């Protein structure tokens, strides 16, 4: 998804560069705050930013090389924006992704130098901000358990990738140099990246869960979770009565959630299998639409997903699967969100509310 030179015209590239520079400047300031108080006390201050952010950037760089086999020889890899945002916080996330993109552009010639602003704006800023906003929004509604952190990171990553694709389409609409209609670009980009987003979401959620299990204090998005636990250790190691109902509630929803996520995963695998029939789904979708002239009218009046359904048989399978997976993912997220919100209201409304706001402020 690295945009090369010449894909977006000069004025829009400059504007995106200004946006990216501003975002990086803000992030530099914010990252200092985020990285200051992760593990140790107030003694370690602003000087922690560079080593920690640098190592996290190296981690993002490395984890992008970790291949996740999908099926039949195809494999994908993590984009890392949502993961970085949840693990180390949005400011550090933007910073790390930007540095990775800068180095990829300079050293590996991956992504054009003049398109650096576009790349940072789309892949760094939009991905991280959307992922973190969705993550935070869900956490505010869900009960304060580890499981809901995983669910929220799934949703955040799931939304962030198509959002970045939509942002790219918006930039393309203003300053694209190729003469391909907007509807086609939007359909192809968002459609394909929804598929990618499902994989990204599953891997991100699993990775966040793995870190949560070992070092929950390191997960920036779950800092609110560890605070009440630490207080209790000071007195006695016995579980407080307030914590007792939480596992019971989690258990009943755990199977429901596991089933939902499992279904989404299986479907993601099946759909990706069909998508793997063509090396790159983006090109295939674009080509199909170019040949089929009637699609144009549908693209104008329907949503991208509806447009996805209007195609030949081979693609109908893919579109059906895609719609199914999106439906499952959305149902899991929305359904469990409402379920938990209602449950929390009725069961233990007053206790977690202040913790939620303090977690949001951190």
């Amino acid at each position, binding site marked *: 998804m690295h945009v090369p030179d010449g894909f977006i015209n000069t004025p829009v590239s400059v504007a995106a560069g200004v946006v990216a520079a501003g975002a*990086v400047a803000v992030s530099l300031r914010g990252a200092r705050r985020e990285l200051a108080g992760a593990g140790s006390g107030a003694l370690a201050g602003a*000087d922690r930013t560079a080593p920690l952010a640098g190592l996290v*950037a190296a981690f993002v760089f*490395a984890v992008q090389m970790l291949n996740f086999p999908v099926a039949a020889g195809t494999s994908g890899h993590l984009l890392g924006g949502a993961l970085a945002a949840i693990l180390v916080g949005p400011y550090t996330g933007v910073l790390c992704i930007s540095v990775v993109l800068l*180095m990829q552009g300079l050293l590996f010639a991956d992504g054009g*130098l003049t398109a650096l602003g576009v790349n940072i704006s789309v892949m760094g800023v939009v991905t991280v901000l959307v992922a973190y906003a969705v993550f935070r929004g869900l956490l505010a509604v869900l009960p304060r358990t580890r499981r809901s952190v995983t669910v929220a990171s799934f949703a955040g990553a799931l939304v962030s990738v198509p959002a970045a694709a939509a942002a790219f389409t918006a930039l393309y609409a203003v300053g694209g140099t190729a003469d*391909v209609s907007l509807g086609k670009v939007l359909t192809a980009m968002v459609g394909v990246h929804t598929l990618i987003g499902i994989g990204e979401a599953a891997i991100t959620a699993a990775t966040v869960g793995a870190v949560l299990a070992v*070092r929950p204090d390191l997960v920036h998005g779950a800092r609110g979770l560890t605070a009440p636990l630490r207080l209790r250790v000071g007195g006695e190691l016995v579980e407080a009565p307030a914590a007792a109902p939480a596992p019971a509630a989690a258990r009943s929803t755990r199977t429901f959630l596991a089933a939902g996520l499992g279904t989404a995963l299986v479907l993601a695998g099946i759909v990706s299998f069909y998508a793997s029939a063509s090396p790159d789904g983006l090109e295939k979708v674009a080509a199909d639409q170019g040949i089929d002239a009637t699609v144009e009218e549908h693209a104008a009046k329907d949503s991208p997903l509806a447009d996805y359904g209007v195609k030949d048989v081979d693609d109908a399978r893919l579109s059906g699967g895609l719609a199914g997976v999106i439906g499952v993912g959305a149902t899991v997220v929305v359904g469990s969100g409402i379920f938990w919100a209602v449950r929390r209201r009725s069961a233990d409304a007053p206790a977690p509310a202040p913790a939620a706001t303090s977690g949001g402020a951190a």
Partner: protein
Amino acid sequence: MGAGHAHRLYRSGNSPVHRLPPHCKLAAVFAFVVVVVSTPREAVWAFGGYAVLLAGVAATARIPAGFVLRRLLIEIPFVAFAVLMPFVAEGERTEVLGLSLSVSGLWGAWNVLAKGTLGVAASVLLAGTTELRELLLGLQRLRLPAQLVQIASFMIRYGDVITDEMRRMSIARRSRGFEARGVRHWGVLAKTAGALFIRSYERGERVHLAMVSRGYTGTMPVIDDVTASRAQWAHAAALPAAALAVCLIGRTL
């Protein structure tokens, strides 16, 4: 991590291009790419001129053509996209070898291919003639925020360490009979990524403490400041200036 490690994209040499101060090279490459991108796509011959200019730089730096061409392969995904563009774009259509192609799509494909390739080639030449540390020094000289340069330098310095850590994890997995074949194995791989994050973060904390104990206060001392003479700037400016001349001629013709 030790000294003397050059990245594999770097080709050591002692040519005039290698000797140029890094910030001059960075500025020159950036200016060159800006000129290339703002050239109208109808000026077909101008892009040939740019290619000749880059070939001249490569010859001066004594970088073989094969090295540059092999590195150009990174562009392949966008070549695939560009090849499809004539089929999906609108506008009037023309017949080429019995295929109906869009004229504007052909122009768009040419535009992306030419500008993208020139941009990649310029970046490859920059990375091939500039050491990593020099590159970072150059960025600092170009007034990139010091904090950002530090983060980039930590990333570069520990990138190989973290990648090797990941490789060791992969060897450990495989030596225990694990083979990732499909979605079912994502859990294991995700745990690897999680462990890698924890190790990276903890390494960052250790590095920070080690640096603090050696007197680090948040800024790095500048040991070898690179300065550029007027002549060096002039040499570096030769590439973008020539490109600008080509561009202006291309616009007027």
